[in-house]
């Protein structure tokens, strides 16, 4: 599926700021299921960007603006071609998780991280352990734990802020896609399944609605001959949701977050706890890491007054075909070319 993404962020500062330094993670990642056709990031004020690749393999644009400014606009445009992902074999055993090489390779996704902390006393940890115990296979276990996480939260836009602990989140009972992802990750890790956080874009009118097959019929997911039907289910879902009538060509969305669980002999298996589905062609991955902290779209500092009288607008538009740039304010122009750093090495 060809998807075009325009991600615009507009920071307005209460007073002039200077020496703003930022890392931008907006470029879709290249992998077996996703080919990047095009990517361009522009900023206003315009500056020379430095592109590098971080530890996780995510593309990072380093952006520094020395001079005084009261606004910062970022426009990241990209186009990708996505393809369906194979489903893992249902024969993978839970015991394989403790195979030493597997454990060693995925160790950093098994332990608590900045945004994913838990203790054995947490109710959600006990719940995860219960449903894990009742599972007959690893796939069943992963799906059961994710459904448990999904059922623990109600999707409420803007209900939480980054930095909320899993304990607080679980007690509050509501959250957004990051929260569904973090809770699912914590619960999976607590039962010994390595899990990572994925940041990206989802082509859907409503990120809480199921895309593709629902994570209910585990036997169907686990059988080896349904990989085609999963993609098909995705296609079927496509024309029906959103309530906008007819076929969607372009949607306004927010950045989305989902997870991947590592399975012995298979590698990462991508799942979407927010809408309880498999990850399919509509999911565009930007990057992954231990949690949100490893893949924020923008991270940076500036010199100037505190954030309190400043604000930010963030818009993501995803189109299914090539989209025109009509309606966009293209004040971002004449940006100097990128310095491209291949795999984090010295500039060419």
């Amino acid at each position, binding site marked *: 599926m060809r998807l075009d993404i325009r991600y615009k962020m507009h920071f307005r500062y209460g007073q002039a700021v200077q*020496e703003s*330094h*930022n*890392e931008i993670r907006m470029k879709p990642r290249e992998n077996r299921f996703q080919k990047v056709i095009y990517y361009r990031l522009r900023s206003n004020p315009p*500056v*020379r960007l*430095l592109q*590098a*690749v*971080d*530890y*996780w393999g995510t593309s990072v644009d*380093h952006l*520094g603006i*020395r001079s005084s400014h009261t606004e910062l606009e970022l426009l990241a445009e990209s186009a990708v071609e996505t393809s369906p992902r194979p489903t893992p074999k249902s024969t993978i055993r839970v015991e394989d998780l403790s195979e*030493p090489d597997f*454990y*060693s*390779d995925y*160790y*950093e996704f098994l*332990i608590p991280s900045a945004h994913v902390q838990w203790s054995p006393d947490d109710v959600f940890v006990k719940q995860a352990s219960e449903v894990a115990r009742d599972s007959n296979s690893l796939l069943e276990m992963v799906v059961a734990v994710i459904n448990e996480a999904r059922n623990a939260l109600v999707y409420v836009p803007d209900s939480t802020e980054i930095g909320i602990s899993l304990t607080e989140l679980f007690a509050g009972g509501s959250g957004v896609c990051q929260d569904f992802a973090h809770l699912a990750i914590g619960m999976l890790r607590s039962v010994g399944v390595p899990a990572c956080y994925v940041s990206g874009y989802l082509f859907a009118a409503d990120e809480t609605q199921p895309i593709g097959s629902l994570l209910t019929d585990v036997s169907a997911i686990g059988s080896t001959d349904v990989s085609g039907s999963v993609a098909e289910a995705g296609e079927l879902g496509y024309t029906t949701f959103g309530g906008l009538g007819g076929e969607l060509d372009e949607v306004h969305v927010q950045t989305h977050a989902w997870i991947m669980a590592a399975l012995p002999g298979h590698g990462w298996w991508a799942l979407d706890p927010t809408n309880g589905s498999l990850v399919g062609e509509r999911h565009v991955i930007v990057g992954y890491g231990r949690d949100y902290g*490893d893949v924020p779209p923008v*991270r*940076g*500092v500036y010199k100037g007054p505190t954030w309190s009288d400043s604000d930010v607008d963030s818009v993501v538009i995803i189109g299914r075909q090539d989209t025109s740039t009509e309606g966009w304010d293209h004040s971002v122009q004449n940006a100097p070319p990128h*310095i491209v*750093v291949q*795999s*984090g*090495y*010295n*500039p060419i």
Partner: protein
Amino acid sequence: MTTDQFSDSLLLDSLGVLLADYNPGKNFDETFLPDGSVRALYQRIVECFTALDVSEINRLERLVDEEFRRQGITFNVYDDEEGTERVWLMDLFPRLISAVEWGKLEKGLSQRIKALNYFLADIYSGDSNVIGDGVVPRWMITSSEGFQRSASGISPTHGAHCNIAGIDLVRDRDGKYRILEDNLRNPSGISYVVENRAAMAKAFPRLFNHYTVKPVEQFGKMMRNMLESMTPAGVDSPHIVVLTPGIFNSAYAEHVFLARLMGVELVEGRDLMVDDHTVHARTIEGLVPVDVIYRRVDDDYLDPVAFRPDSVLGVPGLLGAVRAGTVTICNSIGNGVADDKAVYTYVPDLIEYYLGEKPIIDNVKTYRMYEPDHYEEAIERLDGLVVKPVAESGGYGVLIGPHATEQQLKKARAAIEAEPRNWIVQDLVELSSLPTLTGERLESRHIDLRPFVLTGERTEVFPGGLTRVALRKGSLIVNSSQGGGSKDTWVLASETPEKVQHKTR
């Protein structure tokens, strides 16, 4: 027993008042053999001290103390309610290393640092062949607190990640040198090597008469040459700065000293800024590009964009500049993964893997508490071993089994069981001893040795090092932050002293 040209010993007729009751103990004493005879290496030193009376030695001690005071040579102790700054302590009885012995140490230290630099380059290049080839398990790296994911892809000039290393060496009961730990992040102490020598030469010049001691004054030049060799490609005459966290840092005096010795500016984070992925120093003449930063700011505080956002000690955008290849940071970021004390246990394997050589200097026997057989071997014998946290330095958190209470041992066992990766357990090395002034006498006190290894275009061991001494009787904790002192350390240049005659008491 070590073999060198000074393995002869002799008994002196009289040891004078200072050494009359000297008891070398059961450990390896650098100066005396168990039968009370003096090792030939130290004969002239002992003779010199034998000729001194108490008032004379006390006068010399005061002279040294005043010298350090006058020059403001101090060190800081954190968590000390009585105030954090103390005058540096140097004992007048020097530590000697023969030319032969030093030659071997030099080879062994170079070998170790070369292997560790290959390791760091391998880990941070993203290749991680050392993991793929099964030498070190991946989790050992990813579980290390010192592993900086933000440093991934950084490849400094010459692949030199660790430009200045301080390696702690001890001598066991047989006098065999062993590596106690590596300090590859921001090792401190080098300034004291130079200052100790200056104070010693001033207070006690006649002591040098019978020995040819390798000089240490050239350190600034050596260090500057090393930093110059780290200049990014395409820069002719590099602008080098020393980056300090500021006056509240325990090693601030050293930062000042090194900057002065090298003839470069000492700056704080706020004196630098990044524009277009290039670091500039704010000067009265305007912004001047900076090419090499010898930084004494810890990784986590270097750049608030990549690390702790609340840090005001660093330079925003610095990491971007490093990635752009416009500036070199020395030491590089993330060296903590290689001086992690659990990773330490793999260093002999790293030497074999990267260099195809056997380690010249061995580690102290160390137990990996996350490995069941190591754990079984050590956990019930903690009272005879040493327990160390893997990520600390400066002697903090170290438990010496035989000196610990039952309560402390119980706590240590519980801590190990909770987080086996965070602890190592080592054989207790008794540490060699050296006569040390305690008011009116010279008594045996334990010492270690921290030599410094510089790596830029090539790897060089600085001749000498910091000998630290535990000033409390029987104590094995030599860290200055824990009440240790120091000794001037003499690396002998050649076959000095002249052939000595045997005498009997």
